[in-house]
């Protein structure tokens, strides 16, 4: 069948066809839909959300050693979390074929940095493949499984946002039967004590040589001969961009297997062409290696290593060409930053947090990352998953040591807390700081589009399961002061902050209310009831003070001419946060 699939859907299809039996991931843009689509193959593939990427990869390693074909998927920063098992599994090698999808985000559409994870393949000394469209994304899963098993290596399957989230045509096939190899105890391979790893390092170096020989033979790396005045080496979506710009006016060495590089093939190609360009997105990963091999080429001196690449950049950099565009003044266009949704439970909580004085607000990765923007201005830092609590602890220690009156308040979502926040909280207790940790439990993994997690009560494949009892968990860690609040009740939030700030021991405030976009489970309906409705402004009472507008709710519209606020009934969910901040009690919920 021919289907129009995103790269992520194609990877899932590839996993199905290649006989993968186990897949695990933690959600992260642009990788999330890989596991969501694999989860559809119930009965054929066990698909799971893990609490974090390290756990996901370790589960996959266990399944591979048990003898099954396996796949882990994560966004590029997730690979940092999973790097520990990755580097050691690179030594032991696999039993069942294993690949790690690293979904990179050039252009930072939805990420905190722009790292180029191709370097992980070189760093960990493992094989790497890079598809350039959805067909290749599907086909290369099978290739990755075969390479993994043949060369006894994990395979880094590197994709980028434009591969993950672009659709192109894919010819699908049937599933090849899942072959489970037997598990055989082999301590010389899987028990990485120093004596074993010393020997394995030798094997890893030999494997790299064998992989390079393979790179020179495999059909994943192919040459397209056209005009030989210009030769282009490219991989991934950059290959499509180069074809878009040069068409048949250049010859191509298209690489699908990109580590180790096929240096003999590159050398032969370079000899045949006039000018050799290496067209790659982000860092000069291939260019550096090609130049180190003594082959002259042009790359990053022309093509920038920041932000997304596109055909326009290539045309301008290498051909000095640009299409005519409409000439107009774009400066009149107002920014449209993403905002917390109308009715978002984070809004009221942040509104009260921002009012506190002498506070350092450390925050984390999730929808609440949006709480730092105007008008809430409710957070000071975002570094990585789980960091809010540990950073808050470190900062608090220094404020205490140097006698400064600041208090650190950490805000972290439920899924992020369960990802890596638990260890950080343990540390705050163990090392005796009076950090205030706010777990903003909206009953789902929000930002990535509503994935279940260990606190939500369901598995990825829809099975009801135990939900982590967060208050009990933090008490077990040693937090003696725990309060759960309804974040839509501003007085309750305010009182909780006052309570926590008066304590000299670490405390946890749990803000518990479901994401406004979440499909409520039976348990949610029982706990939270049917609260939805609409608020309206009594224009006679509204004095145009804009206090409500400062909550940043997108359903509120201030009319400059009438100096009154109106509520957009389509967007309003009736959360009543605006009604609580109105000094004139001009806002009320319909029917109350």
């Amino acid at each position, binding site marked *: 069948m*021919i289907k*129009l699939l995103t790269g992520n859907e194609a990877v899932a299809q590839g996993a199905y066809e290649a006989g993968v039996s186990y897949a695990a991931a933690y959600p992260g*843009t*642009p990788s999330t839909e890989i596991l969501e689509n694999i989860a559809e193959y119930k009965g054929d593939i066990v698909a799971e959300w893990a609490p974090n990427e390290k756990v996901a990869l370790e589960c996959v390693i266990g399944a591979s050693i048990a003898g099954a074909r396996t796949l882990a998927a994560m966004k590029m920063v997730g690979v940092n979390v999973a790097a520990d098992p990755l580097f050691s599994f690179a030594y032991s090698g696999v039993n069942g074929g294993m690949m790690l999808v690293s979904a990179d985000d050039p252009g930072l*559409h*939805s990420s905190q940095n722009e790292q180029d994870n191709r370097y992980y393949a070189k760093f960990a000394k493992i094989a790497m493949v890079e598809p350039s*469209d959805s067909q290749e994304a599907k086909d290369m899963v099978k290739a990755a499984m075969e390479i993994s098993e043949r060369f006894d290596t994990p395979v880094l399957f590197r994709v980028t*946002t*434009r591969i993950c*989230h*672009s*659709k*192109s*045509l894919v010819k699908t096939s049937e599933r090849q039967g899942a072959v489970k190899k037997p598990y055989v105890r082999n301590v010389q391979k899987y028990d990485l004590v120093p004596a074993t790893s010393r020997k394995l390092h030798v094997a890893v170096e030999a494997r790299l040589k064998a992989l390079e020989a393979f790179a020179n033979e495999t059909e994943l790396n192919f040459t397209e001969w056209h005009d030989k005045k210009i030769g282009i080496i490219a991989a991934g*979506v950059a290959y*499509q*961009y180069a*074809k*878009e710009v040069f*068409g048949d006016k250049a010859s191509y060495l298209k690489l699908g297997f990109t580590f180790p590089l096929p240096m003999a093939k590159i050398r032969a190609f370079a000899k045949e062409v006039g000018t050799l360009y290496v067209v790659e997105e982000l860092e000069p990963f291939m260019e550096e290696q090609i130049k180190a091999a003594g082959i002259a080429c042009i790359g990053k001196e022309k093509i920038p290593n920041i932000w997304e690449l*596109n*055909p*326009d950049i290539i*045309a301008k950099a290498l051909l000095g060409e*640009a*299409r*005519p*565009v*409409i*000439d*107009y003044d*774009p400066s*009149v*266009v*107002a*920014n*449209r*930053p*993403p*905002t*917390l*949704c109308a009715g978002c439970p984070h809004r009221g909580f942040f509104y009260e947090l921002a009012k506190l004085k002498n506070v350092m607000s450390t925050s984390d990765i999730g*929808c609440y990352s*949006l709480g730092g*923007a*105007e*008008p809430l201005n409710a957070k000071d830092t975002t570094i990585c998953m789980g960091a809010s609590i540990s950073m808050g602890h470190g900062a608090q220690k220094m404020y205490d040591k140097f006698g400064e009156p600041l208090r650190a308040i950490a805000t972290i979502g439920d899924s992020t807390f369960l990802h890596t926040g638990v260890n950080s909280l343990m540390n705050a207790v163990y090392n005796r700081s009076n950090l205030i940790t706010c777990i903003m439990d909206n009953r789902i993994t929000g*930002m*990535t*589009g509503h994935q279940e997690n260990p606190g939500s009560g369901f598995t990825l494949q829809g099975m009801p399961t135990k939900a982590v009892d967060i208050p009990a968990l933090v008490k077990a860690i040693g937090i003696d002061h725990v309060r759960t609040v309804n974040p839509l009740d501003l007085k309750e939030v305010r009182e909780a902050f006052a309570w926590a700030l008066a304590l000299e021991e670490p405390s946890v405030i749990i803000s518990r209310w479901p994401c406004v976009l979440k499909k409520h489970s039976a348990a949610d309906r029982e706990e939270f009831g049917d609260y939805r409705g609409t608020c309206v402004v009594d224009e006679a009472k509204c004095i145009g003070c*804009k206090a409500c*507008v*400062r909550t*940043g709710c*997108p359903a*509120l*519209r*201030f009319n*400059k001419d009438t100096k009154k606020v109106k509520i957009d009934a*389509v967007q309003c969910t009736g959360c009543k946060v605006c009604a609580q901040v109105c000094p004139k009690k001009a806002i009320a919920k319909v029917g109350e």
Partner: protein
Amino acid sequence: MADVRNILLVGVGGQGTILVGKILSSGLVKAGYDVKMSEVHGMAQRGGSVSNQVRFGKKVYSPIIGKGQADILVSFETMEALRWLEYLNPQGKAVVNDYRIPSAPILMGKCDYPEGVLETIKGKASTTVINAGEIAEKLGNPKAMNIVLFGALVKSMGLTDIDWEAVIRENVKANTAETNIQAFRAGMEASI
């Protein structure tokens, strides 16, 4: 590639550009074209500016549309048309929804919604202005605004050979199919 045509759909997260992109691309695939489509997920869903890019022809390489390359720019929100105007081929067409969604800085009174957007665009490119919100409302389903715009897009691009009504039926819930088809027809008529 000269034979490739480029459709750029832009709007605000939550306006249904993704569904239109899906209907459009599945119809084009059925018609035998090579199709690539690119969209950006993630933070853009939270009320940010969104784009959906569809390219089709005999053979398509890049999944994204370059500046000055779109044959048609369909903007689901008025100001967004101006944000993306540099992507429109100066000889291309703009289909702009006369529908304003103020962004966060505007709502807070930090800046104003730009005036004269439609006039500016009309002065720069062949433009069809549609009040898709009003049309959808008249049909009794304000949410079908996106399909009204889809009708206008099909008409403006001359893609009327494809049986879009069948494609719409395959891509929307059965109980909304009839309203969506009415919205599609209304959009076709409105763009004459």
